[in-house]
């Protein structure tokens, strides 16, 4: 895997508690990478270690295979969870200031920013003062200020908090568009819906530890545990006979749906799913067979409760 960012055995303690305990993970280049975890799990601390706002007690952070330096951080686009803008400045002026600080020329900064303001429907805020903006409005400005210099690595801490569903969607689309243009995006969240929609990879952090890491598809499949939901017309005896030891019914999950029996079965990995389908099809009037893939929300809750 071509990793743009590698975190190796990072630990960080504050007086009296451990915020990160031997966390390792790899962020593939061009991915949208979700850092999940309950409140206080250590997501923000991990992000602050990556952005060098906090120093790790031990472990390394590698960018493109080399230890991350202060200079590298200046090219990262970072949006902190607690947004900060200068209150007395005008919106446009402020956005230009941040863009120039990130290395853009004055003219180019303004040109790009005007484009972004148009895209996010906030062109008429250009001359307004930041103190007059609502929280969501200020967040849009901050988002633009974070991405305007098109960094190859973007880090957002809770980017969707404070947004209504319409603006959250707008933001999701922009994040995906940035990914498509070649950026790698890391963001922390506990909004699981957004994870399913836009993340390619995730790491789940709980109690300062990395408890689950990988591509979203694989994790969900793995969490599903090769369970399948089947709809058929047959008696229990016929059904068990048809399965013939290839699969085990999960008894408590029986029900009726539109005249069909709905049942869950477990097919061990070494069995061929096709054979099961063939057998059920022949003797049980099989209507459908679907792999049960849990939602990220289920996985999150199960993982945090320690049942994965």
């Amino acid at each position: 895997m071509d990793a743009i960012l590698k975190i190796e055995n990072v630990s960080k303690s504050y007086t009296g508690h451990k915020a990160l305990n031997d966390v390792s993970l790899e962020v593939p280049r061009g991915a949208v990478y979700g850092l999940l975890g309950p409140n206080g799990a250590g997501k923000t601390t991990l992000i602050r270690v990556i952005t060098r706002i906090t120093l790790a007690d031990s472990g390394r952070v590698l960018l493109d295979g080399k230890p991350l330096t202060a200079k590298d951080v200046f090219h990262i686009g970072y949006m902190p969870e607690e947004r900060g803008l200068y209150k007395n400045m005008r919106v446009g002026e402020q956005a230009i200031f941040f863009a120039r600080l990130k290395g853009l020329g004055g003219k180019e900064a303004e040109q790009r920013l005007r484009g972004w303001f148009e895209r996010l429907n906030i062109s008429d805020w250009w001359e307004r003062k930041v103190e007059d903006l609502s929280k969501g409005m200020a967040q849009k400005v901050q988002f633009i200020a974070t991405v305007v210099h098109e960094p190859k690595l973007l880090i957002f801490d809770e980017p969707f908090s404070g947004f209504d569903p319409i603006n959250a969607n707008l933001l999701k689309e922009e994040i995906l568009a940035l990914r498509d243009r070649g950026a790698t995006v890391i963001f922390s969240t506990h909004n699981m819906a957004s994870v399913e929609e836009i993340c390619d990879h995730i790491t789940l952090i709980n109690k300062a530890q990395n408890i689950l890491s990988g591509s979203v598809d694989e994790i969900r499949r793995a969490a599903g545990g090769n369970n399948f939901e089947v709809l058929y017309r047959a008696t229990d005896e016929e059904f068990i006979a048809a399965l013939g030891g290839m699969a085990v019914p999960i008894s408590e999950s029986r029900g009726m749906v539109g005249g069909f029996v709905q049942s869950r079965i477990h097919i061990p990995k070494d069995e061929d799913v096709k054979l099961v389908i063939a057998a059920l099809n022949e003797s049980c009037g099989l209507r459908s067979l679907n792999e049960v893939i849990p939602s990220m929300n289920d996985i999150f809750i199960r993982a945090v409760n320690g049942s994965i």
Partner: protein
Amino acid sequence: MRNIYLIISREYLERVRKKSFIIVTLLMPILMIAMMVAPSLMMLYSKSEQKQVVVIDRSGVVADNLYESAEATFIREDGMSKSEACNIYNEESGIFGILYIGEVVDARDSVQLITNSSSSMLLEESISSQIEAIVEREKLKEYNIENLDEILAKIETNIELATFVNNGATEDDGEMESTSTGVSYILGIVLGMLLYMIIILYGQMVLTSVVEEKASRVIDVMVTSCTPFQLMMGKIIGIAAVALTQIAIWALLVLSASKFVMPMLFTSDIASAGGALLDGALGTVTDTGYIATLFAYLALFILGGFLLYASLYAASGSAVDSIQDSQQYNTVIMLPIFLSMIIMMTVFNDPNSPIAFWCSMIPFTSPIVMIARIPFGIPTWEIVTSLVILYLTFIAMTYLAAKIFRVGIFMHGKRTSWRELWLWLKE
């Protein structure tokens, strides 16, 4: 450098564009002039009216020679007793009080002033000096000197000391530099106060700016875009530029006043009539070149003093979470500034005393103490040495402050461990 420049211009423009900046810049000179004029105006209007005093003279010498002054007129009632007079000339009579003079004037409690309302220093001074003069004269008379009045008139002397700086010139070529301790004194106070105000005013601006940036969390974005050193220097220099802008405007106003307004106010007739003292004073106030030099030194010491204290303020601002918390650090920083103010006062007694000299070399007190000494005419090498020490200390202080700043700005909520502090200092 580019980042420092960007931060400087942001800090500068944000402040200079504020309405409050423009108002204060224009109002300050008016306020200062008002402050200078106010005491003389107060003197003028607080001058009390003439008071009527009833005199009972048992000695027979004083009352005849009392004369009407700006403070009092006298009514003689030698025939009355003290208690009678007190009854008649009570509060309703409009009389201020009763002056009772016993038979032997310079005996203890012999001269008494019984007033209907509270007495005034000026009046007491006026009466006692008159009586003193009368009694002294009477005593002289006992020696039977002929033409006493004539002799007394002849020996009356009034000296005005004209002071010059020894610059190698002689009186003949007219190049001698006249000075005036009075003017130096006033200039010293004004300059010292100005520096004190500026260090506190703008130094605290740096502190506030850092604390606000921490509180509003802009700091997280800033430090992932530039180094803490750049951020700190950008702030300090940006605010220094605001200070210099303001001082430049004030200097321009004062300079044009000394060039056009002062000569108009003090025409040459007044100057020649005023004698040597006034001459020196006018020479100082109306000498544009001298004032320009003073302002140049002032700018250098303000800049140096400000930079030194601003780095302290920035470091302490970075170490706290709110303005309230910053107060305790503030007090510590203010100590040397207060100390300088106290030492500044001793400078006026002797600008070249050891304490004045050393405190104008020690960087934490030198800006205020030295600027107060300069109007008295200090050798250039002393000024240059003081400046060099000041600026070297500033550089060392900035280095240290930047380290503290780096650690301080992230001590937010969660307590930073000593271990982390150490890690940052090693960076």
